[in-house]
């Protein structure tokens, strides 16, 4: 088991390195001089020279990259052009707000999606299966930013029972999930965020369950007279590792992919920070946020990988 752990971590390190290379090159994708994208437009000649030397822009690219990587490892992502605050502070605050949403969206999406898929997979071809699979297709195809707007129209504009956008009167710092006055701002974003993962997880669970249902050991269980609920328990247990992989991906998407939903609800999370950074052409923030989110994604996949081999001894051997 320790061996496996070490091997998986060794596998994740080059990927994390590659991810940082991609994030580093983002500055160079931007049209024009990278200095112009990093500095405010009204920077004086001295500042430019200073930053140029400090950031090492007069040096060859590989050295620039290593210097940048060194700073990033120490938690220095540079300074935001828009707010002049350290990028690391901005990103950490935003990640906290995104994680607050994910804290609720993840259990909702995982339990609903898994139950839907499991029920559909256990009764393939039934009307229940057709209803659930149909709902799942809509979930997968849903433009969630639009769904968010529809929810706002229904519950904030028409019924006026829930707030439309933002985090409430106490703002990001005073926000508490235990106070309804604050927590009610989370209801619509959490529902919106859960929709697509519910669809995706339901579809993969159904596929996994119906695949296991067709295996020989299920017929054996049935032939030796095991009750139907007990058979379903066996089937779900065998389908779980496959579903877990999809859930891991979805967790990563909920942490990083919520940019559209957070923009709709002006929820000050990592996605909203990104979309602000794009509007302001704030490349250091763009770079820092994406690097952090991608690293979280890599770490999640690593954890899922390990969890999978803990549950399923068949994977451990390979």
């Amino acid at each position, binding site marked *: 088991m320790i061996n496996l752990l070490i091997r998986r971590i060794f596998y994740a390190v080059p990927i994390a390195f590659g991810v940082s290379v991609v994030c580093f090159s983002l500055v160079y*994708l931007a049209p024009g001089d990278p200095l112009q994208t990093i500095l405010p437009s009204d920077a004086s000649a001295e500042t430019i020279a200073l930053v140029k030397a400090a950031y090492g822009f007069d040096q060859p690219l590989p050295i620039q990259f290593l210097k940048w990587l060194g700073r990033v490892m120490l938690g220095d992502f540079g300074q935001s052009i828009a707010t002049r605050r350290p990028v690391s502070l901005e990103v950490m605050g935003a990640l906290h707000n995104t994680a607050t949403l994910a804290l609720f969206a993840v259990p909702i999406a995982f339990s609903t999606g898994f139950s839907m898929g499991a029920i559909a997979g256990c009764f393939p071809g039934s009307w229940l299966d057709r209803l659930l699979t149909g709902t799942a297709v*809509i979930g997968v195809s*849903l*433009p969630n930013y*639009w769904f968010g707007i529809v929810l706002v129209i229904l519950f904030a504009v028409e019924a006026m029972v829930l707030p439309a956008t933002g985090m409430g009167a106490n703002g990001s710092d005073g926000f508490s999930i235990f106070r309804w006055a604050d927590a009610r701002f989370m209801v619509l974003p959490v529902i919106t965020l859960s929709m697509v993962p519910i669809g995706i997880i339901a579809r993969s669970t159904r596929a996994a369950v119906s695949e296991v249902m067709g295996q020989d050991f299920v017929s054996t269980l049935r032939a030796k007279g095991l009750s139907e609920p007990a058979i379903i328990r066996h089937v779900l247990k065998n389908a779980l590792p496959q579903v877990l992989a999809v859930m891991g991906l979805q967790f990563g998407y909920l942490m990083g*992919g919520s940019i559209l939903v957070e923009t709709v609800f002006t929820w000050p999370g990592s996605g909203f920070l990104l979309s602000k950074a*794009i*509007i302001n052409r704030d490349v250091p923030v*763009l770079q820092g946020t994406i690097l952090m*989110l991608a690293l979280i994604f890599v770490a999640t996949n690593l954890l899922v990988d390990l969890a999978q081999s803990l549950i399923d001894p068949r994977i451990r051997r390979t």
Partner: protein
Amino acid sequence: MPNTMTLPTSMIEPAAPKQRGYWGSVGNRLRYDPVTVFFGLVVLAIILAAVFAPLLAPFDPYKESIIGRLKPLGWKGHWLGTDELGRDILSRLIHGGRVSLLMGVVPVAIATLVGGTLGVVGGFGGRKVNTAIMRTMDVFYAFPSVLLAVAISGAMGGGATNGMIALSMVFTPAMCRVAETATAQVKNLDFVEAARATGAGTLTILRYHILGNVLGPVFIYASSLVSVGILLASGLSFLGLGVKPPTADWGLMLSTLRQSIYVNPVVCALPGAAILITSVSFNLLSDGIRSAMDVRM
């Protein structure tokens, strides 16, 4: 048995006209699948509406009207109402399908070509080639797709072309994985070995034995990506990273109409409904084709 030798061919092979090839049976299975047929027709209608937009649209999609702003459904012949500048929503939706479909489909096509080629090369080539290609793809796989698309097109400064480049880069790794897996599976099968033994060159084997078995999964996967492509492309436009105003585009329309939900909520929800209908139709069509072709992913 001399008797059988003299039998007319029509008697030896009575089942001949009923024998369909692989594609014949696929088509037959599709014909008895009403859901797929229906959504196939919806997709066809959406594509035709986009192609013939100038002929179909009842109004000029760019004609503004100061007195006719944000009017409800059916106002003065504007079946779906008007937007915040008094432009006809129906005409803009029909025209908007052009950009939205293009931005969703072109990246999938590019990714299929590039990723498919890389995958076949990686799967068929030696170990070093495979490692080089697949580990590079793994890096791009380590980004959530929305994030990567936003990052690349955002860093490049937005715009429809940059958006399509970004989406192509998002889809290529996934496409490459599908092609690589399929190639690696076929490569070691007996019939490839047999072909090599009879003296077939690498190119011949690739062309006749590998591609024939890889194109199926690749095509199916590409068809399932179209819906994702349209969703992501509209998402980019929604964030202001797609086409620039006043061009009609579903994502952009949704983004600007969003400001008016307090005035005319129904009209504001229409562009998103167009995205949803298109994406659902492509998804169900792709599902139907997959089960008809019986490809397991």
